[in-house]
């Protein structure tokens, strides 16, 4: 558990926000109400990451939760790696910025797996209660009888710094996407980290358009959605529909590429901050 309550609260609010946003994004993709392209697996990974981060902040969980997280984020890492390889080989990535998502998933694996090493400096003896973040410490009570690590190994420190730098670079990338001149829907939904080539090509992005006139699935059952984004999107100018905006329409309208970039930026910074706290 992080000793600073204000920092804990800030991180909790941050990751609750990203989790909520991911949930809405996933729901919009799952129901076909999304105004632009996305990847459900990526959104679910964001959701699980956010939950895991909140859990870490408050040391909620246990050895089983740590194992579960390792499996989940290991799986997500494999998925994003496959997407990255696929996009590199010219195929459709099916996922925006797979390189960045791979970095995030791998960071989570490292964070969970290496926490005993990273938190070594903050260990509180061998009283049986585990270390500071006992919910994520391998061993727990068993660790009480073993040697207590009092210093973080150099290699673990170096690897953590490397992840931290990677996340900050990622944050910089997403911050750049927030600049109005570059806020392109096609860019945001189709790029991979360090590679601006649209992952699926424009022709494979059927829904990367705002003011969408494409007949959305089962359109008669969908709520009237107001896409209020007036920014240039993929070389087009978004148009707002004239339909009145009910609450859910406003929610859907808020799920813009800019909001996506903000969410990614927040997650990157939050995770980097968590790494720094652990050091």
């Amino acid at each position, binding site marked *: 558990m992080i000793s600073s309550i204000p920092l804990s609260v800030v991180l909790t609010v941050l990751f609750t926000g990203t989790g909520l946003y991911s949930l809405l994004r996933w729901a919009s993709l799952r*129901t076909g109400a999304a105004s632009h392209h996305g990847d459900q697996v990526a959104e679910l990974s964001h959701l699980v990451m956010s939950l895991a981060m909140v859990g870490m902040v408050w040391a909620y969980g246990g050895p089983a939760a740590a194992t579960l997280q390792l499996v989940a984020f290991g799986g997500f890492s494999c998925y994003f790696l496959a997407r990255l390889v696929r996009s590199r080989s010219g195929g459709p990535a099916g996922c925006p910025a797979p390189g960045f998502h791979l970095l995030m998933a791998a960071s989570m694996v490292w964070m969970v797996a290496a926490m005993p090493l990273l938190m070594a400096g903050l260990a509180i003896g061998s009283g049986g209660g585990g270390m500071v973040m006992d919910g994520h410490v391998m061993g727990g009570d068993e660790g009480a009888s073993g040697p207590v690590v009092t210093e973080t190994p150099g290699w673990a420190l170096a690897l953590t710094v490397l992840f931290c730098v990677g996340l900050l670079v990622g944050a910089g990338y997403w911050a750049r996407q927030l600049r109005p001149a570059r806020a392109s829907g096609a860019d945001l939904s189709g790029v991979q980290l360090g590679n601006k080539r649209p992952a699926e090509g424009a022709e494979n992005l059927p829904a990367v358009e705002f003011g969408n006139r494409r007949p959305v699935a089962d359109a008669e059952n969908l709520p009237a959605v107001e896409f209020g984004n007036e920014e240039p999107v993929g070389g087009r100018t978004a148009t707002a529909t004239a339909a009145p905006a009910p609450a859910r329409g406003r929610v859907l309208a808020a799920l813009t590429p800019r909001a996506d970039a903000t969410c990614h930026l927040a997650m990157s910074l939050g995770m980097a901050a968590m790494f720094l706290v652990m050091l």
Partner: protein
Amino acid sequence: MSETTVSASTELDDRTDLYPDGDPETAALPPAGSARAWWWRELRPLLLRVHFYAGLFVGPFLLVAALTGLLYTTTPQLEQLVHHDQLHVPVPASGGAATALPLSQQVSAAVAALPEGKVTAIRPAGTPDGTTRVVFAAPGVPEDYSRTVFLDPYTAQVRGILTTYGEWLPVRAWFDELHRTLHLGAVGRVYTELAASWLWVLTLSGLAIWVARRRRVRALRHTLAPRLRGAGRGRVRSWHGSVGLWAAVGLLFLSATGLTWSQFAGTNVDTLRAALHWSSPSVHTTLPAPLGLPGAPATPPASGTSLSPAELATTAERVLAAARARGLGDPVQITPASKPGRAWVVAQTQRSWPEKQDSVAVDPATGTVVDQLRFAEWPLAAKLARWGVDAHMGLLFGLASQIALAGLALGLICMIIWGYRMWWLRRPTRSGGTVGPAGGGPSGGRLTAGGPAVGPPGGTRRPGFGAVAMVGAVAIGVGVFLPVFGASLLVFLLVDALRQGRERVVAG
């Protein structure tokens, strides 16, 4: 391929193959525009799909739990049959009431029969024809199990030595283990947790679908009772829904109480109960420090395991006498102190109605009662938990409980079989059926001109964004509290997302 949505009316109720989803109520929705229509239109397809997919994939686990649970309901009688010799003794025919030997004498005989063990509990005979049990921790016994010596209270003759699990004899312990873990240890506990975690979801979603559906078509009789005539999926669904309706309360109860035993959710339940002060209370066993008064022991009383056999036997008798003096009637269990300076505990163990769960803590050196706790003083939540656990195990009302639980298990087994039967009847590869776009498609599962409805239930309509987001938020909260539910739900969603992604690539 042109799609033909068939409009339906209530009088065509039996023609279920004509309806999207096979459900006539699709056409019987309230007029669009009403508040209820809005949220129900969005929520219903989601509930249908959740009920369908969860039932399809969790069904086998529930089926195993129901089957093993059904077998478990027979164990009280089975135990009496198989272990009759260990449980019962002939009552000596004497002029007056038969008199049992002093407990100390019985305990001494038990210790002599199992000298390598350490006494962990003593259960004096609770009925005239019952045996006294002396429970031992012994080498070579599996974790959580004990060796129990059964004694004739009138002769101190050993009637048998068995490996027991709590108060269960081997036959009941075997079925208990089968129901809890399938004899697979900690890994096996996940199966029951998975079943219990999804049972309430299936029950509530099925209840909502069934009640709302029938309420709309204004057929109360068809809601409460199954259709005896007719054929096909409609009739199977009628049985599935009606039986489910009647069993709903019982299934929710089994799910809730089952989760309290589970590996991961059970820990959270315990934490919650502790935080809300709902935990089962227990007597305080810490003995007051010696006051230096004349007659007070200079050293703290020894623990049960460090006493000599003779001391143990006499102490047990002293402690039982003190508890009797405080009004603790049979059946009771005496638990020696686990370490020096602690009191012995005598607790009533009757788990049938009316429950007897009073307990006292007794100083083993002096026989003084140092603490007493009556069941009547337990917090209501703790009492409810106690009654819930005992009802789940078929103990609370004896045979009536067993029959009710067996009925629930049978009902659940039938519902699972009917559920799979319905799935089979609407399977996508069914002869003459036309596979419409799947759930992820624009009109997934819509009735087509080429044949009957196919695809998953609810496939004719997309769940609304609001419904998915709302249910998703609830699922996150529940998933954190019930980790196996959360993890399995995540797996479902990931598989669904990958499937949809592949369909999109193929379609693109």
